[in-house]
């Protein structure tokens, strides 16, 4: 995949010229030339977070140990420590985005192609009967993290996650048409 987006370059491993590095953040030791850091192993990737408090950026910088199932230059996939079902996976972009719609188009494409692979691995490896790919954007949608992420939830026959069946409401054609006009 070709990642041409210039905004993404700042987060490519080895590039420490990014302007929004915070010296107090998790990236401090890559920024401070006065300290003798030669013995510290540089993390293979530095996430660019604005506040340094994001737990998922710490995971990406290998400051918190997690059970990862997949990693490449742009994303990491880990097992959720608060799973909805066994083998619940979180797919996390390495660059810090607060919500999914902020993510650069090339990364969006890459993330969901990887989601497909992981979904396949979950079904094959755990003998799941299906998967839910789920994201929440915004507090009212149920987002609790400050880092955009995608849930891959393995589903088994007769598990207790009936919510994903989605409630349905009846709506008149006239109402539908008015919503459609608002969107196009």
């Amino acid at each position, binding site marked *: 995949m070709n990642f041409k987006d210039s905004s993404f370059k700042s987060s490519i491993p080895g590039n420490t010229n990014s302007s929004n590095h915070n010296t107090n953040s998790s990236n401090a030791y890559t920024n401070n030339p006065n300290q003798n850091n030669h013995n510290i192993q540089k993390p293979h990737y530095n996430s660019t977070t604005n506040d340094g408090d994001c737990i998922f950026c710490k995971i990406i910088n290998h400051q918190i140990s997690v059970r*990862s199932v997949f990693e490449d230059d742009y994303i990491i996939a880990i097992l959720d420590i608060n799973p909805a079902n066994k083998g619940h*996976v979180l797919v996390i972009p390495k660059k810090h985005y607060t919500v999914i719609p902020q993510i650069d188009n090339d990364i969006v494409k890459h993330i969901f192609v990887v989601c497909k692979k992981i979904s396949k691995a979950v079904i094959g490896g755990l003998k799941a009967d299906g*998967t839910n790919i789920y994201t929440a954007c915004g507090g009212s949608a149920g987002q609790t993290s400050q880092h955009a992420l995608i849930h891959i939830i393995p589903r088994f026959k007769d598990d207790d996650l009936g919510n994903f069946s989605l409630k349905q409401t009846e709506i008149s054609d006239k109402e539908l048409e008015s919503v459609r006009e608002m969107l196009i």
Partner: protein
Amino acid sequence: MRLCEFCEKINKKRNVLYEDKDIYAMLGSRPSTKGHIIVIPKEHYTIFEHVPDDIVAKTFLIANSFMKLVLKKLGATGVNLLVRNGIAAGQSVPHFAVHVIPRYKDDQFNLKWNFKHFTEDKMIKYQSAIKYYLIPKKNIEKVRDDREVKANYLYSQLQRSP
């Protein structure tokens, strides 16, 4: 032959929001919330795993732009993106679809779950089951040298299978 519900909708062009040669986006006729959008590949793929990578990329890219659109145009305060892949996951139409569900304050709609707890041993088992399924078979020889993997029960099972 009877068409699936979504293929039929593509033919009838009902409630269409977006259309190109690969992708079709429409308003759900039985929406969960106001402005519930369904993005589907035009080709009939039953499950996620059948969809080719380029169509996956395109479908989610368009779903992503609809996520932005509902926040901007419908006054939604949040948005969910959901794929129901397989009957056990709640899939009701045998045609791969991405749901974009705008969320509003007090919309009486709940997608939350209760956390389950698994022992460390089980978590390790789940991790390796997924991790080693993702490794291409041709690379599995390389993995054999990995000490962590050598000690792994699941990997030895994997080696045993032809």
